[in-house]
């Protein structure tokens, strides 16, 4: 199941976040978001350093023993990141659909300035609908047997 969705700009500002599972408030919310961006950026630099063809090495999924982090970075520097549980399959389609939602409800919104925090109501509703819909499907398959 999906724990949360984070959208970062090129400069590291968290433009949008949606938490479906609340954490126990161990650390400050803002720091938590900054850590996540730091992780994404560091991993990208590291992957360039480690690979044989630096241009083509793209980070897609980072897994630990308790969670999975799915990443999609666009050429414009936007990073779409989804934190999920371990049994969640690849979320490339979901991330790509979230990018389309961004284009429809944020990029095309004349009241929104590019690079600032997103306060678009419609975008929030669409993202929540899409992600919570997905969560329901995963849980349903567990009980289907």
């Amino acid at each position: 199941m999906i724990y949360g969705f984070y959208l970062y700009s090129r400069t590291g500002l968290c433009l949008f976040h949606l938490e479906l599972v609340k954490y126990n408030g161990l650390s400050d919310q803002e720091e938590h978001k900054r850590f996540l961006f730091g992780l994404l950026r560091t991993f990208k630099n590291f992957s360039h350093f480690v690979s044989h063809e630096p241009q083509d090495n793209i980070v897609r999924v980072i897994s630990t023993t308790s969670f999975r982090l799915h990443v999609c970075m666009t050429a414009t520097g936007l990073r779409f990141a989804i934190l999920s549980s371990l049994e969640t399959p690849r979320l490339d389609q979901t991330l790509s659909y979230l990018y389309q939602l961004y284009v429809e409800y944020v990029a095309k919104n004349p009241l929104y300035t590019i690079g600032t925090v997103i306060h678009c109501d419609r975008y929030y509703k669409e993202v929540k609908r899409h992600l919570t819909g997905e969560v329901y499907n995963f849980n349903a398959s567990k009980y289907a047997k």
Partner: protein
Amino acid sequence: SQSFCAVYVMASVSIQDQKRLSSKGDTAFANMEKVNCELFVMTYGAIVIQLVKDIGDVAKVNTRLEAMGYNIGMRLIDEFLSKAQIKRCKNFQETAELIARVGLKMFLGVEGSIKSKDDTTFYMDLSNNPLNDFVELPPQFKGKLNYCNLLCGVIRGSLEMVQLRVQCVYTKSVLNGDDCDQIKVSLEEVLEDVFADDDD
């Protein structure tokens, strides 16, 4: 129906790649919402006329059109990347082909063709720019007003969002008597990422 102005064989982008990009452009165009061509073209003309009336000075109108295009380009690039499923370009020539065959096709419905000078400059020819339909420039504006300068701004704005700072100018125009529209794009700088708190 596509019309190719000319097909130039390029050192780094092959004919197969061009065909592949053209079909990609066609698919992307087919999936886009469309608006009536005359409505779009007439509205653009009305904007230009209003700018000329409001500002007066032709050079300032050109700058204003380019600035408007720049703001459009900044938002357009995400739609372009998302709808056409674009991956990274290896060099500037690929970027040029992508803009002409996929980008222009997707948003204007016509393809451009690329003539490249070197690794950092290219010329894009547009043989049937729809924005020029029904337009006739009066003699006092011929050669001075870049009617489609918005396109230059759009290209500049879009490329800046992908870290390429370019300069984009109109070199030939059908409205001035030339055979086709030509835009010259020259790469000035590849921008580096600047992060908020880099000295932790």
